């Protein structure tokens, strides 16, 4: 009886130590789900008069600058002349659309990307509190350097997936 009691006491103390995690103190999840945009370029090679060899691949843009435009006012830069192959854009949690300016090289004209989306409030965890997830509706982009746009995923609840691919002209 005594041995059994000691075993159970030890197990209980160990279990208690493991279980003593205050959930309201620990935030081990990402609070923000940013919109992930990948850059690609089609380097077309002409084989003959009628045949072109398309080679679409990820590309690193040499001097990427990104900032949001809020009510016509340029906000702080998210990226400032950095070489990037992808960018992460934070959608506004209080508006159903937002605009970003994207310049992929300092000598080129910037493009604007307008995103329309719906927002959903989400309880992340006891330690993290609440966050917002987004469902993308529409993307409107100017075509100074951007050739085309492909929406890969409309649901923006984590930054692990690529949500949008931008195809650039060969400049």
């Amino acid at each position, binding site marked *: 009886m005594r041995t059994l009691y000691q075993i159970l006491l030890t197990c209980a103390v160990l279990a208690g130590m493991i279980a003593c995690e205050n959930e309201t103190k620990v935030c081990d999840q990402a609070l923000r789900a940013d919109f992930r945009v990948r850059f690609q370029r089609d380097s077309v090679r002409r084989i003959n008069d009628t045949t072109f060899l398309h080679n679409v691949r990820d590309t690193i843009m040499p001097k990427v600058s990104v900032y949001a435009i809020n009510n016509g006012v340029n906000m702080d830069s998210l990226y400032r002349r950095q070489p990037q192959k992808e960018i992460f854009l934070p959608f*506004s*949690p209080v508006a159903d659309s937002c605009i970003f300016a994207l310049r992929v090289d300092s000598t080129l004209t910037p493009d604007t990307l307008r995103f329309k989306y719906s927002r959903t409030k989400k309880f992340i965890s006891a330690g993290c509190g*609440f966050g917002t997830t987004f469902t993308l509706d529409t993307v409107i982009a100017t075509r100074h350097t951007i050739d085309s746009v492909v929406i890969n995923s409309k649901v923006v609840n984590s930054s692990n997936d690529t949500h949008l691919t931008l195809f650039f002209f060969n400049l």
Partner: protein
Amino acid sequence: MSLAAQAQTPAKPAAAKAAAAKTDTTRQPAKDTTAIIPVKDSVVHMQGGLRVGLDLSRIVTSIYYPYRKEGTAVADVRLNSNLYAAAEIGYTNTPHSDSNYTYKGSGMFISLGIDYNFLKRLYPSEKNMFFGGIRYGFSHLTYEVPTYKINDRYWGNNLTGSIPKTNVNAHWVELVLGLKAEVLKNFFLSWSLHERIMINNVKSDEFTPLVIPGFGSGSKKAVFDMRYTVSYLFPLYKITEHIKLPNDKDKKKKK
């Protein structure tokens, strides 16, 4: 041996022999007049009653988890020599406030089930237990989020809101393994380990209750818990058990 020894000793005087014959009555053969009836079984009366107690581990819990204010009472009733009907009832209050949100929750729970004592008693009146049990748990809770805030560093906007009062029922199955030791007469200390598995879903995308009374964390489907209980047995009745004694044939077989 003694007779032989007496034979070898020299003859005593006749007067001494006669006196000894008059006084020594112990050496006469006794006449056994009792009849031995073989007993096939025996009746044992064990103490039964209502055992009620309090879970002291909730005091420790409230230190580690300031947002969990809980009180739990436990009770069991002996049904037969090893089987007990067990119940737990309690109340939980869950106040929480930090920079992101405030939360208010409260509710009651009850769990009903049985415990089985696996411990082989050393003597019939032993009350120590090594037991396993199963319970069904039910909880009703009310919770609300009076205020929450979603911060955004880049846009500089804080989204605020609230979640109105919501009522939820939770159901779970609980497995128990534990020990009860009688430290004073009818006074018990008990350790027990509890594994609880939620049956229904109380989670929602909008919000999940922080604590489900009697179950534990609202964000988990299964939780592990322990209890340290002090309890007192009110002896109310006796339980009769027939213990089969080994008969003569069995004894012979064993020999």
